[in-house]
């Protein structure tokens, strides 16, 4: 076989040639993917895509403009190369290739995004459960159109106000346990109209002020609302906030849907990037082994691959947290190693996978885990040693940090537990729930923050309460509980001063 190319200039024919070879090899490795839609774009367009979180179309909001300006500035100053890939969880799976890239880079992106990420989107349980790849683009079209209509009807400022508020609560707009059913855009429009009418009736009923019979009142007094605490704050507000107009409820719903769509991605960063990086590495190496690409190609590819998976040490000026590409890639490589060449230690730690078929094991890992459980399950002592991980215990009551585990026999499990916890969204984000509404009195909404390990809320929370207040329309109380005791109380409007 001869090389597919020896030049670094790309053409559409060459891209197609690479794609079909990579596809052939991907099939051999049982990568199951959505169809690919590969779009060649310019650097400016890449900045656009960047600014809109990779969404091919989104509603307009100043915050995206802010992202764009920041991206543009960094790019122009040369402080940042553009990410060479953006891929969208949709079917067909949309991936962007930047025009400026060389041919080896384009091949790398095709392998990484179109076969790596793509198969992850299709295979991972979180994505399967929570997102519907075939409906997302339709929904984006619907939401963009709807918000535009609202802007025309109610003014940009009004819409912006409600979007600002919703964005501040976006992370509290997801259902963690219930699964939404995907629907098409047309259906969405139809349902939206129905919802408007019905919802308004229900809400009004909840807040009825016409006096009723005596017995009913007594009953109502004892009734707690909501009957159970609600963790999806945006949903709770959308359904129950007394003063919102139907269109405002619909906007809350749109933001909620977007949050839900991104929810799996937020939980699988390490896995997703690790998986895609593992596969671009493996696929392109296979191309080389088959004699389809030359050494020049491999050198260029390996240069950028090495940059991607670099993990600076904690004391390096380049340190910016644990690099999900590095951790994920090395974990998948490590799993493969454990399957193929297990050491005694591996056999002791991973008896169920040591010596098993590596491809099967890798696919199983990709499908059934999220970052937190993936690390808990597969982070090996060898990798902890390779990364020289250590765990720092920061207790505000102590004058100094405590190194409570390092990469040794005694520390492996602690490090694995702590690292896993670091990726646990429910641990990473404060636990706040809609607790009760004073139905009979001032209609105030009380939220309860349950502290974990005495970690307080950031200062932002007072700002967020203001947003909550503007959505709810009546007083907001945020109570912080630690070990069942109330330790802090915030309100909007502020009653403490």
């Amino acid at each position: 076989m001869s090389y597919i190319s020896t030049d670094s200039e790309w053409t559409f024919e060459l891209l197609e040639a690479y794609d079909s070879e990579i596809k052939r090899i991907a099939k051999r490795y049982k990568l199951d993917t959505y169809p690919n839609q590969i779009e060649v774009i310019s650097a400016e367009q890449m900045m656009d895509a960047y600014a809109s979180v990779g969404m091919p179309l989104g509603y307009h909001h100043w915050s995206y403009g802010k992202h764009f300006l920041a991206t543009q500035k960094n790019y122009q100053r040369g402080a940042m190369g553009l990410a060479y890939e953006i891929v969208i969880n949709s079917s067909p799976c949309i991936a962007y290739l930047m025009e400026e890239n060389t041919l080896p880079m384009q091949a790398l992106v095709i392998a990484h995004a179109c076969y790596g990420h793509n198969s992850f989107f299709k295979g991972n349980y979180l994505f399967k459960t929570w997102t519907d790849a075939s409906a997302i683009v339709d929904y984006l079209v619907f939401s963009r159109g709807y918000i535009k209509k609202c802007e025309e009807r109610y003014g940009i400022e009004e819409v912006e106000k409600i979007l600002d508020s919703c964005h501040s609560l976006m992370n509290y707009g997801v259902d963690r346990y219930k699964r939404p059913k995907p629907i098409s855009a047309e259906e969405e429009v139809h349902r939206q109209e129905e919802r408007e009418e019905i919802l308004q009736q229900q809400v009004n009923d909840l807040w009825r002020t016409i006096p009723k019979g005596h017995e009913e009142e007594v009953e109502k007094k004892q009734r707690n609302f909501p009957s159970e605490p609600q963790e999806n704050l945006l949903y709770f507000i959308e359904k129950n906030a007394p003063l919102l107009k139907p269109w405002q409820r619909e906007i809350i719903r749109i933001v909620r849907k977007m949050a839900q769509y991104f929810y799996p991605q937020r939980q699988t960063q390490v896995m997703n990037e690790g998986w895609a990086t593992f596969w671009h590495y493996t696929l392109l190496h296979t191309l080389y082994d088959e004699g389809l690409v030359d050494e020049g190609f491999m050198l260029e590819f390996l240069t950028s691959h090495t940059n991607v998976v670099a993990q600076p040490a904690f004391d390096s000026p380049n340190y910016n947290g644990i690099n999900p590409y590095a951790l994920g890639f090395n974990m998948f490589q490590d799993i493969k190693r454990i399957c193929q060449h297990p050491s005694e230690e591996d056999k002791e730690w991973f008896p169920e996978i040591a010596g098993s078929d590596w491809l099967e094991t890798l696919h199983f890992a990709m499908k059934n885990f999220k970052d937190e459980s993936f690390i808990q399950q597969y982070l090996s002592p060898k990798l902890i040693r390779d990364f020289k991980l250590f765990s720092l215990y920061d207790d505000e009551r102590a004058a100094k940090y405590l190194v409570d585990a390092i990469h040794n026999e005694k520390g492996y499990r602690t490090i694995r537990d702590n690292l896993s916890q670091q990726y646990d969204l429910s641990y990473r984000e404060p636990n706040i729930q809609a607790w009760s509404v004073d139905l009979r009195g001032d209609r105030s909404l009380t939220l309860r923050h349950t502290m974990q390990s005495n970690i307080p809320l950031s200062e932002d929370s007072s700002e967020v309460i203001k947003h909550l207040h503007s959505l709810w329309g009546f007083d907001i109380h945020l109570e912080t509980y630690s070990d069942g005791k109330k330790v802090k109380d915030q309100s909007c409007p502020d009653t403490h001063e």
Partner: protein
Amino acid sequence: MSYFIDRRLNGKNKSLVNRQRFMQRYKKHIKQAVSEAINKRSITDMERGESISIPSQDTHEPIISHGQGGQQHRIYPGNKQFAAGDKIDRPKGGGGGSGSGKAGNSGEGEDEFSFYISKEEFLNYIFEDLALPNMVKKTLSTQDEFETKHAGFVTAGTANNLSIIRSMRNAHARRIALSAGKKRKLKALLLEQQELEANPDGFKHHARLLAISEEISVLKSRIKKVPYLDTFDLRYRSQVKYPVPTSKAVMFCLMDVSGSMTQDIKEIAKRFYILLYLFLQKNYDKIELVFIRHHTSAKEVSEEEFFYSRETGGTIVSSALKLMHEIVQDRYSASEWNIYAAQASDGDNWDDDSPQCASLLSQYILPEVQYFSYIEITPQDHQALWHAYQALGKAWPKEFAMAQIKEPGDIYTVFRELFAKQPQGSRQGESA
């Protein structure tokens, strides 16, 4: 199945609307930054954009997250010498933050959100909604600046345009035309005369000879009468005037530097001049600046001297107006230059002088200028000059404007007021 789509030809400005929304939202900040920049820059240094910084607190989008404190575990890579049980000093300045692996938190933490606006945007922020007063007057439709161009030769003109070569050539041709026939005849007669005289029995032809010599002398005198150079021969180089769009402007900065003008007042005035300069720069290719300062007498000075030297003494405003008029007469003909003038003062003037100023303006200056603006920078009541000028505003509504500035904050609004867009209708018709 994979599809390749070439999207490069699609618009690249997908983020344009969002960018505009952002700029709209932070207009106040941007304008603030722009006006600070104006303060720092020199009048002529406007050929660049500006880096705008907005406190990140203001552009921050709050979300609920964990703060510092409590008990937290964090995992770091790259251990070098730590052993379990080691205690480490807390880093100064509270670095670290919770959950260093958090993607959502990266990139934050700068104190300022800064970005760059282009020169055009920079200027647009200053000149939003403004249009040059009476600009139509000097636009293509009614130019009154001309450029002379050669357009061949004509028979009439002034002596300095006489084309000697052309004239001599014409004279030569005319002389040939008028005398050639006669000369030919003369030649023939002379030949005949010679022959007859040489003839031995020429006496027979005596009568003929007499006739010939008669004819010869007539011809000779006729030939002699053909003028060497006739007015008819003269040719002049033709100079035709072509109208060209006016693109030159001169800006007169007039300022009172008497003892009563403090540095603060001068600073305000400077801002005003800068804005005017910028504004002209946007509309004209070439702008000259003339700085005239005055107390009891006026003097043309450099920019540096204009703004930063101190004088004491009384104030006679008319001296500056006179000097301006002289300079205009001398160097800036109104047909060639668009003349703008901005006068700044604290309003003080020698009492008898104010009416004189008004009459100077209305007689000599206002007919020549595009625009004359007067700003009175004083927190107090209007002074004599103001009252004298007030009538001018009515008589010359398009050319003259005045306003009072009380504090630095007013300057921008005043500037806008002075140059506020005039309704389209009022500009028509007056250009003749």
